[in-house]
């Protein structure tokens, strides 16, 4: 222990005698480690976001979503198929095994949303009352609408956190009315705020609930006009039974819908579970590539350390001779050089961690990408850099230890 401490003191003294050289030597390590940490933080951030978005879709769900078309295409498509409809939802529940229930959703383009307190822009959806069961809605106030609201075409709505903020500010929102297009709706619930603002994963749009307003499907169909050419439903969320396989069930749904829609591909089927796997694969590939880049840059850093260590063996030959003369064993000399190499790598590594954290934070702040610096990425890159450092210090250390003390003493 004392030996280690002494060796560190000597190593740090040596390194601080050549500050510029030390800095330049550790540069490779520094950027290597910094790059790894920054990249992994971006990767981890992207993954976490992807997971959150997939989670929101619901891994126990299969989503059938109506495609949007250009007007001229739409007319062609509509000759074959009417688009997604309540009939599709019913057919799926009836015919596809493993489906617990299906809940429809329509999308409305509001041209006007206002309340006593102000106005806002928002997406408006009409959904079945069971919609709450298929997504992870968290309500911060009030309630979601129920079957009774749906059957009575109740003019109620549940609003997103951002919508609430803009319409009512700090005032209470429950019981107040919101005007959407030409209808008035009473606020019965407010959704909890969400941290993430991203809206797509693997190219599939996933909306944030912050700027959304939910109405009972029946109310929305009756009170708000929609383009008649549009698909009657925007989306059917199919909830699976506990043990039903997602992909297989989705395939059966696909076959069924293909028949019902006369072969018109006016919908897409999204399987969040498959997205999850896909995302994990992407992440694995990303990590592999990163690992490779990291490996190369750390290798370069290691070569730098070896180079400078070899130079300092030459430089310190006399000193090595003196140390040997006063009683240093070969092992002491070797140890000293290894500790110096370790210190170099550690300095580089730690500065690299600082740079990595800086980049991660800068990316999060300026590029608006979420970044997550994981402990293991720091531990891994530091660990590898130290390993590489000590590894590349090995040969110089052995050379230093092998010096003949007599020749070393007489070297110039």
């Amino acid at each position, binding site marked *: 222990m004392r030996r280690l401490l002494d060796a560190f003191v000597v190593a740090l003294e040596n390194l601080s005698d050549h500050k510029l050289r030390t800095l330049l030597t550790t540069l490779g390590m520094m950027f290597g480690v910094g790059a790894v940490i920054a990249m992994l933080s971006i990767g981890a951030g992207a993954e976490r976001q992807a997971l959150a978005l997939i989670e929101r879709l619901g891994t126990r769900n299969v989503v059938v979503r109506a495609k949007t078309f250009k007007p001229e295409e739409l007319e062609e498509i509509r000759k074959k198929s009417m688009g997604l409809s309540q009939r599709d939802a019913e057919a799926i529940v009836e015919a596809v095994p493993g489906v617990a229930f299906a809940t429809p959703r329509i999308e409305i383009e509001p041209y006007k949303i206002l309340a006593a307190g102000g106005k806002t822009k928002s997406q408006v959806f009409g959904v079945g009352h069971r919609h709450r069961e298929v997504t992870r809605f968290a309500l911060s106030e009030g309630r979601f609408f129920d079957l009774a609201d749906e059957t009575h075409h109740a003019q109620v709505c549940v609003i997103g956190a951002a919508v609430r903020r803009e319409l009512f500010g700090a005032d209470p929102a429950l019981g107040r009315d919101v005007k959407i297009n030409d209808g008035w709706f009473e606020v019965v619930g407010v959704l909890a705020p969400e941290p993430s603002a991203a809206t797509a994963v693997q190219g599939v749009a996933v909306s944030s609930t912050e700027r959304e307003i939910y109405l009972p499907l029946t109310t929305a169909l009756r009170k708000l006009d929609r383009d008649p050419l549009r698909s009657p439903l925007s989306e059917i969320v199919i909830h699976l039974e506990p043990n039903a396989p997602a992909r297989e069930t989705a395939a059966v749904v696909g076959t069924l819908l293909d028949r019902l829609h006369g072969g018109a591909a006016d919908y897409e089927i999204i399987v969040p579970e498959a997205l999850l796997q896909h995302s994990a694969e992407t992440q694995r590939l990303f990590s592999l590539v990163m690992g490779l880049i990291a490996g190369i840059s750390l290798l370069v850093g290691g070569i730098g350390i070896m180079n400078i260590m070899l130079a300092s063996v030459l430089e310190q030959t006399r000193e090595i001779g003196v140390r040997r003369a006063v*009683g240093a064993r070969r092992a002491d000399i070797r140890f000293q050089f290894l500790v110096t190499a370790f210190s170099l790598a550690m300095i580089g590594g730690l500065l690299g961690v600082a740079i990595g954290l800086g980049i991660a934070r800068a990316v999060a702040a300026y590029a608006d990408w979420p970044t997550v610096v994981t402990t293991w990425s720091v531990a891994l890159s530091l660990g590898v850099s130290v390993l590489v450092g000590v590894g590349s210090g090995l040969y110089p250390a052995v050379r230093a230890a092998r010096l003949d003390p007599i020749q070393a003493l007489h070297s110039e």
Partner: protein
Amino acid sequence: MTAAGPLIELIDVTRHYQMGDERIAALDGIGFRVEHGEMVAIVGTSGSGKSTLLNILGCLDTPSSGQYRLGGRDVQGLSDDDRARARNRQIGFVFQSFHLLPRSTAVKNVALPLVYRGIPARERLARARQSLARVGLAERARHRPNQMSGGQRQRTAIARALVTEPSLLLCDEPTGNLDSTTGEEIMALFHQLHAEGKTILIVTHEPAIAARCPRAIRISDGRIKADGPGAEVAYLTPPVAPAAHP
């Protein structure tokens, strides 16, 4: 280490070097004893083999044949590590060019041998200061070698050699890089240490130095040519220049 028996005993020591096909005998059957508390000069010209002898005596090198016993213990059978230990515990080196670590202060230089004994830093520095005081450099402890005169540097080196309380002080041309006045001071210091009971061996090519030692061993061509009182041996058959009187 033990008081009984000689400190140094060399029996028919040879040391060969292989130079291509040629085998050169640097030492060719050297044998002598040095008792505890002696002050001995080993005098010879360059190429006489005295440096090789110094390396062997200092446990930096091992004889090709023959026996070297230091403090009653055979050295030639020792491993590299054991010889390092022997250097650390039994021998204090004083070199011609001081061999101080240039970036370390005097006190740190002096403490260096104690590092390899696993002594805690605080104690190392305390003992190093004592040792510096012994050679009259107590107030120079924080100076670096380049802030000191040649004499001060050599005193620092002597303090380093003394710090481990070795049984043998092995000096290689200790006044060779010093002017004559300073050289005299260093020699006076050696005499003082000798008076305190230290065993001192001085390897030199200067007869004047050898003449000031109670005993001198003259070496030439790897053999002992003379061994006796310094004043008598020092100027015997000078191989190069005619004898220069002090």
